[in-house]
């Protein structure tokens, strides 16, 4: 139980690091992946696709687990988004 809890907190830390890396490097990421979904691995390798369902299929086909990657949409530069 304690080990599972520690593992989950460790996953949160790892994902936070990847997410922060995306934020810090969004300008260069946008040059190649604007308006695409990206999945970023721990080693910062990026898989991308215009459709989320296709991206998930591609990740699975490559033998990886989608939930282990950080998946985000790369908005256009200057696009103001309200939720």
């Amino acid at each position, binding site marked *: 139980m304690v080990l599972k809890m520690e593992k989950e*907190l460790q996953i949160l830390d790892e994902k*936070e690091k990847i997410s922060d890396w995306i934020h810090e490097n969004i300008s260069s990421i946008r040059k190649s992946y604007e308006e695409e979904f990206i999945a970023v691995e721990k080693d910062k390798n990026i898989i991308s696709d215009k459709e989320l369902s296709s991206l998930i299929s591609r990740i699975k086909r490559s033998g990886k687990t989608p939930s282990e990657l950080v*998946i985000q949409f790369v908005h256009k530069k200057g696009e103001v*988004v309200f939720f």
Partner: protein
Amino acid sequence: MKIPIRIKRSEDGSLRLLVGYYARNGSIRLNGDIEAMVDTGADISIISEADALVKMGGSFKNLRKTTRETLRLGGIKSKLRTLKEVKMKFKKEDGTAEIINMELFTSRCTSKKKEAIRSAQTIPSIIGMDFLYKNDLKLVVNPKENEAYFEKVE
């Protein structure tokens, strides 16, 4: 008890509040980390369509309807479904875990149009006002000092 929130500044200078948590609900095969945007304009907390597709093994069709059936977010109309009580695990300031059990929701775009579906899938997971209210938490944000956190109201 404090749960730290990350303040992220985009290129245009706008700010976003982000918090990560680990979500579990065995009955719907929900198991995974969620990065949510804190949005005090939202009255409910949702796991986004994209996060549900990736982190939830169960089918959207099997989720229960709620009294609030429709979600309008970012100009997109979606069906709303309850995920029932989800175990949310946060990392506190001292590095230990804070477990919060509460009802979360998820959505699925009702449109068949590709562009609408794509737009719906760009909406992030959200922590709304219900999270603060139901769990006796306050939200403290000081962007100048890069400080933001949830704190238990004594």
